[in-house]
């Protein structure tokens, strides 16, 4: 449907994109007692760390191999070894997840080879899982880093079940994309439980980054899915992947352990959730619980109440592919027109975005295309564009550093969709145009009295 074009500029202005190593690091943060480690200079880690701290308002476990100029040129074996030994000694993690960066990729550090040597030299680390993902900064984007990392975790940590094993029909693997919040995952966990299904989320940032006060916490992640739980995911009866970015991980799971999978490209919207509920009902053999029948009815009512405010509105969305697809599809279903769709990286899902064109570009492109729209949807960096354009901004995705509760913004399921209608609908309502005596006078220019002052969400 949509034509996909790439910005022809040499200079990226006001980046929408973030780098893939930190997408990978975030995925590792969904494992319990984990320490993500970026193989690069200390700045690679510190920028990512600050970004996540500001978004989640939580202490973030993220370490660095602290490559100096000399170490980079000579190769980073010593730094990787020292980093692993130091982290293992100081924080006793169950897993260290290593992502490469631009500098170490250019040198061509063979980290897989390093890990083999380190294994041979340090038998005391036998119980520590080490997973390495290649994530050069000069390729792809945040979402790709997350996607590759989850696929790699599946490849390395999921155990092949014995051939004659009877699968646990209630055990389901859930692979959430990077656009799902800890709140989304909690919501999904409840839904699965209502069908008497036992989901294993990989990654599960709902335990580690949901903003709670832990009784006892460690310098590593203090929640998430354990290495042992990941190993036994091969015994599950089914895999559900959420977002096109998770297809690779779902395929890896099928290859490795023979678990059949379904990819749901989104879980926001009435039809999408109907399909999801029907699927859960099918794999669990249980009818849709009364609670969700009621929630569906509430969503339908919210759509009826809300459509007055959504219909005919033009919107601009700047987000990573799966989030862009989710929001543009849902808002189109509510009667909006997507006038500008800007994203960070390629994905098969982009062709299905309900817009004439999807641009792989930056927030300068976004700002140019968003002029005249009723609403902007992008991450917190859209605030400058919103101010200049005088158009309200509804913050979505990561980073969200100038609002509270980023981790608990829920937009999946019937209830999440219902609440999203209320939140965005309220922004539209706040923009309500007050009539002016001259509004209908011939020759009157509507733009003069325009809209109420822009109140950024």
């Amino acid at each position: 449907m949509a034509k996909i074009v790439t910005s022809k500029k040499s200079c990226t202005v006001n980046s929408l994109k973030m780098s893939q190593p930190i997408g990978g690091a975030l995925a590792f943060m969904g494992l319990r007692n984990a320490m993500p480690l970026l193989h690069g200079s200390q700045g690679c880690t510190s920028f990512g760390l600050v970004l996540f701290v500001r978004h989640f308002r939580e202490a973030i476990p993220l370490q660095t191999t602290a490559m100096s100029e000399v170490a980079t040129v000579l190769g980073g074996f010593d730094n990787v070894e020292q980093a692993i030994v130091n982290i293992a000694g100081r924080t006793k993690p169950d897993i260290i997840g290593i992502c490469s960066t631009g500098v170490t990729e250019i040198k061509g550090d063979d980290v897989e080879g390093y890990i083999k040597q380190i294994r041979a030299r340090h038998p005391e680390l036998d119980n520590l899982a080490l997973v390495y993902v290649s994530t050069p900064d000069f390729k792809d984007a945040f979402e790709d880093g997350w996607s590759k990392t989850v696929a790699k975790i599946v490849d390395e940590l999921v155990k092949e079940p014995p051939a004659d094993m009877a699968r646990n029909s209630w055990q389901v693997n859930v692979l959430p994309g990077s656009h799902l919040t800890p709140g989304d995952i909690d919501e999904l966990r409840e839904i699965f439980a209502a069908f008497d299904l036992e989901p294993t989320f990989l990654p599960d940032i709902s335990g580690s980054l949901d903003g709670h006060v832990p009784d006892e916490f460690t310098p590593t992640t203090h929640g998430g899915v354990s290495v042992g739980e990941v190993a036994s995911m091969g015994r599950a009866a089914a895999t559900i992947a959420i977002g096109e970015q998770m297809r690779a991980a779902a395929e890896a799971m099928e290859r490795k352990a023979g678990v059949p999978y379904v990819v749901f490209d989104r879980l926001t919207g009435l039809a999408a959730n109907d399909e999801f509920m029907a699927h859960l009902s099918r794999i669990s053999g249980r009818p849709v619980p009364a609670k969700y029948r009621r929630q569906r009815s509430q969503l339908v009512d919210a759509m009826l109440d809300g459509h007055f405010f959504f219909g005919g509105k033009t919107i601009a969305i700047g987000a990573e592919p799966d989030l862009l697809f989710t929001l543009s599809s849902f808002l189109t279903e509510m009667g909006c027109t997507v006038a500008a769709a800007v994203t960070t990286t390629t994905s098969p899902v982009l062709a299905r975005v309900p817009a004439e064109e999807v641009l792989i570009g930056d927030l300068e492109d976004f700002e140019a295309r968003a002029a005249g729209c009723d609403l902007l949807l992008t991450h917190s960096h859209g605030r400058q564009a919103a101010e200049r354009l005088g158009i309200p901004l509804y913050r979505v995705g990561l980073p969200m550093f100038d609002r509270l509760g980023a981790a608990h913004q829920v937009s999946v399921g019937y209830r999440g969709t219902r609440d999203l209608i209320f939140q965005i609908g309220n922004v539209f309502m706040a923009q309500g145009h007050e009539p002016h005596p001259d509004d209908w006078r011939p020759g009157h220019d509507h733009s003069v009295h325009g809209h109420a002052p822009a109140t950024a969400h």
Partner: protein
Amino acid sequence: MTTLANKIQEVFNEPACGKNQAKSEKERKKGCTKQLQPGGAAGGCAFDGAKIALQPLTDVAHLVHGPIACEGNSWDNRGAKSSGSRLYRTSFTTDMNETDIVFGGEKRLFKSIKEVIDKYDPPAVFVYQTCVPAMIGDDVGAVCKAAAEKFGKPVIPVISPGFVGPKNLGNKLAGEALLDHVIGTEEPEYTTPYDINIIGEYNLAGELWQVKPLLDELGIRVLSCISGDGRYHEVASSHRARVAMMCCSTAMINIARKMEERYGIPFFEGSFYGVGDMSDSLRQIARLLIQRGAPDELMERTEALIAREEAKAWASLKAYMPRLAGKKVLLITGGVKSWSVVSALQEVGIEIVGTSIKKSTKEDKERIKEIMGNDAHMIDDLPPRQMYKMLKDAKADIMLSGGRTQFVALKAKMPWLDINQERHYAYAGYAGMVALVNEIDKALSNPVWQQVRRPAPWTETTWEARADAANALEAAQLAESQGPDAERRARRICNCRNVNAGAIEDTVRAHALTTVAQVTERIGAGGGCGGCSERISDILARSSPLPAGAERASQAA
């Protein structure tokens, strides 16, 4: 790369730095950069440092040459404010891709500079080198030169790729870029005998504006602030100032010192934090201006203004004193400016715990900085239970620290205030001091603390009680496993080489050591950044006096 290597040697060898001059020739060569520990390091890189130092220049375009990580993950995240142009908040990066890596990124950089100039027409473009183009050998200096000639605009190379060192080094390399390419390249429209430069002030949260009205009133003109709320033309013509104040001791000392050498601009190191320090700084500015030819009457007016402002500040602070006197603050930070907050808090009767400093002399301040600088890294990943113990042992009411430790403090349900870079409130000048005290009061008096410390109805013991029990158990186990000297074994003296007090004491006694250098030779302590040499001296001083024979023997050996 050799020029960059030379540059780094040059900034390490800083004659205006007392600490540096106290080092031996060999030590000095090693530079003041701490050896980073893989898997145990924290903090930004040299590129980050360069960006922090220069981004506050508001009207120039800051173009980052590198892959998306360097700029895409970090842009628009600092609180430097502008009174004019907002171009500095627009993010520019070459976002290098695989093709650039293979064929070199120079062409993309050149085109990017052109696009920036065509679209935004800034007075200058600052181009930041990062690790990836440094690795593949992009000659950023040459591209900048060619672009400057082609487009008739200053294009300033900032050569500070992340992997050459930490933030602090980047601050200085940014200073070198200004010295090499900007300062002295333009002339001011006019000059006055009251022109000053302020160096190392970034106008975070608008702090410069808390001070500027006072300078305006005295007729003192800030010819250039490097770099807070700065404009290109001001920095380019800053060499015509009469005197300079250097705000942040370590960050840009090279600018202050070299401008003194090149243009004869005398400078002093001062601070805008705290009533006393603020007054001292105003006096120093007046004194130096008078030395350089301003009329003597400036001092009278300055003293009158100081008297008026101090009286006003004290009157405002007085309201807080009954509420805050005797409150204890645990101040933990590696932040470069925050040490000057100490004297400020003491002025309103707040007690600083964790140091034994009563009255802040200049040497004491150096000491606080030393202590804070080293402890800051230690608490970065302190579990809340131990944080709670630390606060309890110190009997502290509130903790002041940098952003990284925020959540550790909050999860221990302890009032906390940000005094580092990312903070949202301005604490400079007389007004800022009142604001800081107001913030502390707000934090302490907030009713949430009592509520969040309430145990949940289903828990029989409180979190605090459990933490106390766990801490007591841990201490008992430690004592059992390591014997009576566990405590001194646990007290780390040299962070770089990871040497504890017990080990140093034993070595000093066993080998009858008398100097820090001997200690370093024996067990490495003091061989990293050298920051612990004072504490090693203390141990040497504390160790029981040796029999004369032993001393001779050690010297003979």
